């Protein structure tokens, strides 16, 4: 799975209109089911509590309503979206509606037959995830034996003429392999390579102590990326998503709450960001009960952190608030227990020390002895059952 929490798009006019702008980016998380069990997955740790899935007709309604609102980009994600056998039907409908359609997949289940069908349906692009450039680490991190299969799938994607973006989530274990990961992307003919440093939500937050890299690892990896960028030019564009724990200012998360991103979870819950389910005190509207227009423009959940009125100090009076919009609400909650606080990545936050501590612990490698927790149904049920409202590390509330 990938993290898409960076601003999508960037329409060239940056100015925010006075009112609420329409959504641009619809993420359809078709299912939480997944053949992989990645330790850094951003899905809610209690995803097994939300296992009822929208049916084909309900998804088609979502696509039509979102397109009518103005959404132009559509990601089919999950979980593994290929586990839905109506994926081709949904892609076809989406393409007819005028969406740019992105399939975000592990590649497991992407047979030649399905590639043919997706091509016929008009799919625009496939983003394929790898966990590493080596079979050992790829297979360990996903708790599967999938590396060789993924390599064959990458070839098949190119053979079918799809633009391909390779995505690899980075962390302590694979940062030293960045050169090999880039070589792999080049050899596979990927148009873009997204090197996404782990963002610590969901399962990644649970495994944070094990995944957190050191500052030296990051510095070296960035230097490698820079060197490749100079050498390869336009052949493959490399994105390097910086891990924000190492920054002093927070990211402009989702380009603003309820600003461009509209996520629909497998059960129909509408989310202003991928990981919003972890936030307390918010009831997320469901497409089964409410129109998307009402959800986007009128629901409490989507309006809660729009604009600046919700901010507390130090954000409220900060002259940089229009740049980063206070950072990430989920991170503020996970690290300070209050989603309206400043994202503690910011060194103006009184909680910034909590971020520093995590980075220091990683440097001291205090955490290596703990086992990682794989994303699977048994672990999810256990985490959901032992869920404690006072413990934000346990992720999503029921």
């Amino acid at each position, binding site marked *: 799975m990938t993290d*898409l929490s960076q601003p*999508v*798009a*960037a*329409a*060239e*006019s940056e100015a925010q209109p006075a009112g609420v702008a*329409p959504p*641009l*980016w619809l993420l359809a998380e078709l299912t939480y089911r997944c053949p992989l069990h990645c330790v850094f997955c951003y899905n809610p740790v209690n995803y097994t509590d939300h296992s009822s899935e929208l049916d084909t007709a309900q998804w088609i309604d979502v696509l039509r309503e979102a397109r009518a*609102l*103005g959404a*132009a*980009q559509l*990601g089919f994600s999950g979980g593994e979206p290929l586990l839905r056998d109506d994926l081709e039907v949904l892609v076809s409908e989406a393409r007819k509606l*005028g969406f*740019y359609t*992105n399939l975000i997949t592990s590649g497991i289940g992407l047979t030649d037959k399905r590639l043919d069908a997706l091509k016929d349906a008009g799919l*625009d*692009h496939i*983003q394929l995830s790898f966990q590493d450039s080596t079979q050992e680490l790829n297979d360990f991190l996903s708790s599967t034996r999938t590396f060789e299969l993924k390599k064959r799938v990458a070839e098949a994607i190119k053979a079918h*003429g799809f*633009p391909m*973006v390779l995505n690899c989530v980075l962390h302590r274990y694979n940062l030293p392999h960045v050169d090999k990961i880039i070589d792999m992307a080049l050899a596979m003919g990927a*148009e*873009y390579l997204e090197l996404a440093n782990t963002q610590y939500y969901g399962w990644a937050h649970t495994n944070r102590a094990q995944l957190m890299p050191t500052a030296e690892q990051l510095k070296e990896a960035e230097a490698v990326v820079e060197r490749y960028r100079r050498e390869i030019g*336009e052949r493959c*564009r490399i994105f390097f998503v910086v891990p924000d724990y190492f920054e002093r200012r927070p990211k402009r998360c989702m380009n603003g709450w309820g600003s461009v991103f509209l996520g629909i979870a497998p059960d129909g819950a509408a989310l202003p960001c991928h990981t919003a389910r972890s936030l307390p005190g918010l009831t997320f509207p469901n497409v089964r009960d409410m129109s998307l227009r009402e959800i986007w423009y009128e629901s409490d959940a989507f309006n809660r952190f729009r604009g600046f009125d919700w901010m507390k100090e130090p954000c409220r009076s900060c002259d940089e608030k229009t740049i980063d919009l206070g950072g990430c609400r989920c991170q503020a909650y996970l690290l300070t227990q209050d989603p309206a606080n400043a994202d503690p990545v910011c060194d103006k936050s009184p909680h910034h020390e909590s971020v520093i501590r995590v980075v220091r612990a990683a440097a001291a490698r205090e955490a290596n002895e703990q086992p990682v927790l794989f994303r699977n149904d048994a672990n999810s049920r256990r985490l959901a059952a032992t869920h404690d409202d006072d413990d934000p590390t346990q992720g999503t509330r029921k």
Partner: protein
Amino acid sequence: MTESAMNENEAHRPKLRKLFRLQWEPAQDAHVLLYPEGMVKLNQSAAQILLRCDGTRELPAIVADLEQAFNATGLDADVRAFIAGAQSRGWLE
């Protein structure tokens, strides 16, 4: 630029890379360029140039077509500059 490079440039027929799709977006009241997980909103002149980068026309033909369509002259330098920029951003083949 050498003469042969110049000739090669003149003979080139710019075309959007297959990663990109150009379309009219009513909600934006503008043409946009869509690509994996991203979108660029185009102003009118950018859109009119890119609409003609369809792989069938050489650069001088694109300029002539635009000058005719907009009843203008002297667009050559602007169009060339835009196309060079679009190439460096990876939009065009």
